[in-house]
């Protein structure tokens, strides 16, 4: 198959695994930032075949959307005049009391869309309703959401708005480097396809860690890991690009322009992690009319997290799901305590779906 089979070749995969084994003389800790990469690594069992410790980062947009924002979404969706639209995997994220899927079952008009422009079209087709799009995600989804706002503005749609919860990767990586012991990073290929990798160069130099821009297929990840391991063993700390077929150094200038027009950088709360300065996007003042939180008066809504699970440690890479006493018992995909158990790309759900079980301490008899 063109463009997929090439990156899933078992023979090449085994060769790369052999090269990583030969190259790694220390048990390095490497963080993959992106939930899509976590998903591939766990689904394929890559981390169980190589002599490095893969640390799963905070790169699941569903996981890091703040509880208060989910509660705002639920409050807006409950209004009878609202058609609330979202990508599918936000629908099962627990808010303080319920989730959007359950709200839908109770009568809220909640719809899955595959593009924010679908939500704009829905607004054009339903002039008597208010259409709200849940604009969540990293630099990857932000350009399309910016385009949706620009399109609504161009078409003069007064019944379209967005509930924004965008997060930016480099400030989060910087925060992780301040608090966790990680030797190197695999940067998310699709984020860099938008933003390029110039922002990563000062990070690599300041914290003396290799960063390799990496794709999402099994061979992408194995090759990215090999590139990182070689840098670590040689004492280098550079930004390299494994994902050359999709990523240019300067990124996608058209998408970056759209971001610059519609959004402004701001502080952001990451669910399970806390506040990280300059790590989020909010609507620019000239697009404030499209801010659903303001339009529906839920901007002041806040929510207090319950101290029941260790999602924050997992998202920062200081613990794995198997370290969590609630994993697989109190907390399952059926009944998630925390967001990492919700999305298939959340670390806990990826572990659980792959059948990874916590090894209970066993008494060894003499």
């Amino acid at each position, binding site marked *: 198959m063109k463009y*997929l089979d090439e990156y*899933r070749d*078992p023979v090449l*995969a085994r060769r790369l*695994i052999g090269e990583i084994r030969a190259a790694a003389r220390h048990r390095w800790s490497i963080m993959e930032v992106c939930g*899509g990469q976590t998903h591939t690594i*766990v689904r*394929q*069992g*890559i981390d169980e*075949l190589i002599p490095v410790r893969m640390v799963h980062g905070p790169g699941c*947009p*569903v996981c890091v959307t703040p509880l208060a924002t989910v509660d705002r979404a639920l409050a807006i969706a409950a209004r009878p005049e609202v058609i609330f639209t979202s*990508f*599918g*995997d936000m629908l*099962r994220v627990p*808010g*303080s009391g*319920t*989730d959007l*899927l*359950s709200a*839908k*079952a*109770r009568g809220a008009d909640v719809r*899955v869309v*595959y593009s924010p422009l679908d939500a704009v079209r829905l607004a054009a087709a339903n002039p008597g309703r208010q259409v709200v799009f849940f604009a*969540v*995600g*990293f630099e990857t*989804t932000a350009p399309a959401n910016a385009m949706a706002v620009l399109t609504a503005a161009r078409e003069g749609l007064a019944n379209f708005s967005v509930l924004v919860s965008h997060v930016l990767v480099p400030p989060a990586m*910087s*925060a992780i480097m*301040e*608090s966790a012991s990680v030797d190197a990073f695999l940067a998310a290929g699709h984020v860099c396809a938008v933003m390029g990798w110039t922002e990563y160069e000062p990070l690599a130099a300041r914290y003396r860690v290799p960063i390799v821009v990496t794709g999402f297929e099994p061979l992408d990840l194995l090759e990215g890991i090999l590139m990182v391991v070689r840098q670590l063993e040689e004492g280098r700390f550079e930004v390299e690009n494994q994902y050359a077929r999709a990523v240019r150094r300067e990124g996608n200038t058209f998408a970056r322009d759209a971001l610059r027009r519609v959004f402004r950088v701001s502080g952001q709360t990451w*669910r*399970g*992690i*806390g*506040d*990280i*300065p300059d790590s989020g996007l909010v609507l620019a003042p000239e697009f404030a009319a499209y801010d659903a939180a303001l339009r529906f008066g839920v901007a002041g809504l806040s929510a207090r*997290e*319950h101290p*029941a699970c*260790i*999602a*924050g*440690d997992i998202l920062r890479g200081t613990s794995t799901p198997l370290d969590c006493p609630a994993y697989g018992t109190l*907390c399952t*995909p059926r*009944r*998630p*305590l925390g967001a990492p158990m919700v*999305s*298939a*790309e959340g670390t806990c759900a990826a572990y659980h*779906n792959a*059948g990874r079980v916590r090894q209970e301490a066993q008494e060894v008899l003499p």
Partner: protein
Amino acid sequence: MSTGFDPLAATCPAPLTEDERVLLGHGSGGRLMAELLADLTPRLGAPATEDAALVTTGAPEIVVSTDGFVVTPRFFPGGDIGSLAVHGTVNDLAMRGAVPVALTLAYIVEEGLPLEELRRVTASVAAAARACDVPVVTGDTKVVGRGAADGLYVTTTGVGVRLPGAHVSAAGGRPGDAVLLSGPIGLHGVTILSTREGLGFETGIASDSRPLHRLAAAMITAGSCGVHALRDPTRGGLSAALNELAAASGVGVELDEPAVPVPPEVAAACDLLGLDPLHVANEGCLVAFVDPARAGAVLSAMRARPEGAQATRIGTLVAGHPGRVIMRTLVGSTRVVDLLVGEQLPRIC
């Protein structure tokens, strides 16, 4: 720099309370559905592990199955709700080794449905039933008010006669059995999703909806008594079918990922949407647990039929890890293939 990490913030919300309402996920073929069936079927005094029930009236053995169809859109590449309603029930009979002898048909129609559409669906039911050599012997039509249903719901019940020597059952799998699959997976689910949502994957992709009773009969004939279990992996996909059979048989399944045929269009669509082809619905393939000594003959018989032309062996049953499906991955590691909780939800990025 100050990262603002706050130990109190590094926590998660309280667990959701039990929601006593039906969710869409309860119909998805995953774990929610299994829980719902485990709740409901004991109230009927009926087991829930088979696609069709054996009615013990002596010889010949009578098999009965009933199924409701609510697909949106009602017309899609490769079929429509009418042909699907025939194939679904015929296939459920076939999974117990039965040849269909009669079908019943019930419509629930929403006020306002164009009559022409009802005629088209009925013509499609008739054509599919003719192609399966099974008559529609009785039926029922109810009309409900606008807004009370989504256009048209179709229910079919099938009565079949079990082939002599057919001892297939969900509980029939034994350690050592070969796991055979009759064709590529994911085509129906991706076609429906693509047509319903206008995702633009339509080119070159169509549902695999078709009857499987002749394929099943050929397998049973070629396999003597070696065909132990059959299932068509519809809702919940191959993953749900294998998990259900493994649990009913008390055996473990070991799958070989490179051997599982996923068409390029299905793989590409699933990649884009973050779906797993193993969980995507099918309507025209079956999975079988077959005695290893008979597996070659059964596979040859499958490949001799058009609906089994791409049949292949995808794994083996083992005595270890009963009820679990383990897959050897492309890169040579292993993972558990579990039931989904509810619906597969397309991801953000």
